């Protein structure tokens, strides 16, 4: 079957077998920033934004994206023109192996769209579905708080 959607702002269409999962299709199309950690919605490594909402792309079967808009980590920023959240992750030391990072960044992005003034508890709650085994989360939460302040235009303390 043929599926048509928007991926990172560009029209996207491809032929897929029914039951094919979004994570695999994105990765097969070179968007390998979306990671696989469990394949069953338990780790958040595969998070992408579906119409701005974070979803585990390993749980999304392709018909679901028909006519919708997908944002992957590649669509958020580039190494030379990063999104402020990506910048903050790098600066705060929130990236160790980096395998969880794309999903974390996208979950954080969705949070900050919805709530530009989060507390540390709000951040922890929003990232609850994104597992990280390397960092212990402290610097990830720091990074999101830092990015939130910058996006609000506040000077850094």
């Amino acid at each position, binding site marked *: 079957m043929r599926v048509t959607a928007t991926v990172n702002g560009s029209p996207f269409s491809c032929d897929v077998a029914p039951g094919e999962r979004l994570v695999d299709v994105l*990765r*097969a199309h070179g*968007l*390998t*920033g*979306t*990671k*696989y*950690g*469990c*394949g*069953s919605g*338990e*780790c958040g*490594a595969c998070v992408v934004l579906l119409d701005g909402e974070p979803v585990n792309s390993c749980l999304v079967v392709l018909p679901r994206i028909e006519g919708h808009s997908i944002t*992957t*980590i*590649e669509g*958020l*920023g*580039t*190494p030379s023109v*990063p999104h402020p959240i*990506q*910048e903050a*992750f*790098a*600066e705060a*030391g929130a*990236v*160790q*192996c*980096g*395998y*969880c*990072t*794309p999903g974390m*960044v996208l979950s954080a992005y969705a949070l900050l769209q919805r709530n530009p003034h989060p507390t540390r508890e709000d*951040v*922890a*709650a929003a*990232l*609850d*579905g*994104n*597992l*990280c*085994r*390397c*960092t*212990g*989360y*402290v*610097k*990830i*939460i720091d990074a999101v708080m830092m990015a939130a302040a910058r996006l609000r235009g506040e000077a850094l303390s």
Partner: protein
Amino acid sequence: MNEYDTTVVGHSVRKLDAMGLASGRHTFTDDFALPGMLHARLLLSPHAHARITSVDASEALVLPGVVSVVSAANAPRVFHTTAGQGFPEPSPHDSVMFDWKVRHVGDRVAVIAAVSEEVAEAALGLIRVNYEVLEPVFDPLRALEPGAPVIHDEPEAHAAIPVVYRPKQNLAASAEFSTGPVDEVWDQATHRLDRTYQVHRASHCAIEPHEVIAYLDPDGRLILRSSTQVPFHARRIVANVLGLPVGRVRVIKPRIGGGFGGKQEVFLEQIAGLLCLRTELPVRLRLTRQEVFMTSRTRHPQHLRLRSAADGEGRVTLLDLDTVLDTGAYGSHALTVATNTGSKVLPLVNRTRAVRFRARSAYTTLPVSGAYRGYGATQGAFALNVQMDEMARDLGLDVLELWRRNHIRSGESSPVFQALGEGTEGVPMSIRSCGLEQCLEQGSKAIGWEEKRGRGGNGRLVRGIGMAALMQGSGIPRIDMASATLKLNDDGSVNLLVGATDLGTGSDTILAQIAAETLGIRADQVVVYSSDTDLTPFDTGAYASSTTYISGEAVRRAASDLAGKIIRVAARMMGTELHGLSLRGGLVIGGDRVVAVSDVALRSLYQEDQEQLMGMASAWGEVSPPPFSAHFAEIEVDTLTGRIRVVRYVAAVDCGVAINPALAQGQTEGAVMNGIGYALCEEYLMDDRGRMRNGSFVGYRIPSSRDVPDLVTILVPTYEPTGPYGAKSISEISINGPLPVISNAVYDAVGVRLRSSPFTPDRVWRLLKGE
């Protein structure tokens, strides 16, 4: 107390690959596909212990899309260990790719390569395997008893070095030593404790599952792109198992999504490699999460019996530790985790008159144990610290005071260092940097020890605080080796080629900082490439807390080698003597004359006396200086449910000079959270047939962002004279804290001693009820 003024070392420079990772651009093993690539899936044993009487793959092979099936019927039978360790490996050679016997649920029976994962998966059900089921053994103590079923009855299983190995008795490894009059000290002691402790199995849970992609280059060499901590060991082991010369195998390590010891195992590369050689097609073998739990490696559960004695002055006079490790179905790291349980723990208490240690690793028909961050020290530190807490209470002393009176100090040695090595005798060592005293001091202040200890209470929610003293090592002395190559580019930047394996820790950045410091340039002028057995020089790999200390020293030496050459050319350009020239800010400086390093490079590459200026060096450790640490936690016990909440956690760590303080903190925070998960909730739930019931992140819960307490890391600076720029290690030590700290804090809160982990609500609740 840096001994030098450093401009790059000691600064939290941004991790070099952070932005490439945060933007999803860096590539991991799976982020790479080759045309015509096959996908492999493993058929795993449903039985804990069985003989395979027949394997019939004919039905699977006729399924369209199936290309190859390998099982005991058609696999090479080369006995090896999957443990990625120095050569010859201290772990017993008791594994083949596929055997006629399975020894745990999840053991490998066959592998299928097909055009897609779906086809491979469908074909798994078409392989007909007949099993003769054997009696399983799930208890390591029972496994060592006479008459227990023999798990490794194959005649080929052997030890590669002269060590005790008795597979007929299910004894995979053993080690012991004793010094001083143990019985006499015990008999005469005024204060004595004799307790047993149990620590449990756990999974590393790197978020990236194990994976390898195997392909042939145009000359038919086998290329393995692998998520590994040990590329050079992988090359050696795969070449041996597949009967290839080492030169016909290349292992490439791309970005790695975490390892924690789990990827110090070489158990998939040979299988993917064999399928690739047979089919002459690229083959991808990736474990599912459930397979990671079942068929990769785990932490060694241990049954530890610790006896200690003390005199009236609060001097601990005896430590006597006897432990049995459950190494599971194969003896991966069976000996070295055993010895580390003593060698990375017992020296902490250093006023003893006698010390005895015995460890035995038993085969069982359970998941395979292996290397896991902490590596025995986690288990031993639990027993020691819980017993120190109990001893202090017996003596009527504050446990901090008991530690102060007994802990090892700078300038001291311990007989344990020489007695316990890694498969051989150890190396005598006297401690040259020890910040444990300051860790105790600063950590106890930060947690509020004086105000909060012993406050307990009678309500539903009761708080308590606890502490632990810890040590680890920095590499394996006289075994771990690392090397580095540097070459100077036109613009004064350098390429740094290292076999050291960054698996997410930030070691590439640490090594770049060391090179930059030595060469007087910025860290971002160092282009790091790690690691590829064709392109980078040898390194034993990322394990045993070795990278900063040993690989870092290799880089420092290689950079000094290059610095010397740069200075020599600069002296010629300036027409001065070598003496008195130094490198700073991208310049060679001699009095009031300067030459830019880039001009040195241009001259050497294009103009005069042309040569590629390069630095090259190797390093190995003569000693393994321990980092030290004191951990503290305030916890809250819900006496109605048995639930424990960690409120505040303080880790004070002496890692020598922290080359990059932010990365050192990150290592500590990650290790502490891994340790808290291990202490409170991570657990293999097994049924009575040896099957794991919770092989997913829902069933096996690891900490999430909501579980983070107020977590404080204090880096206590010392200067280790044998380390590069004064550095020791930091990656492992902090995982050893939470287990004893939380147990001791629970006792402080509610007077219940937790000697078996994990401290699940159910277990705590039953103890509170006096069961």
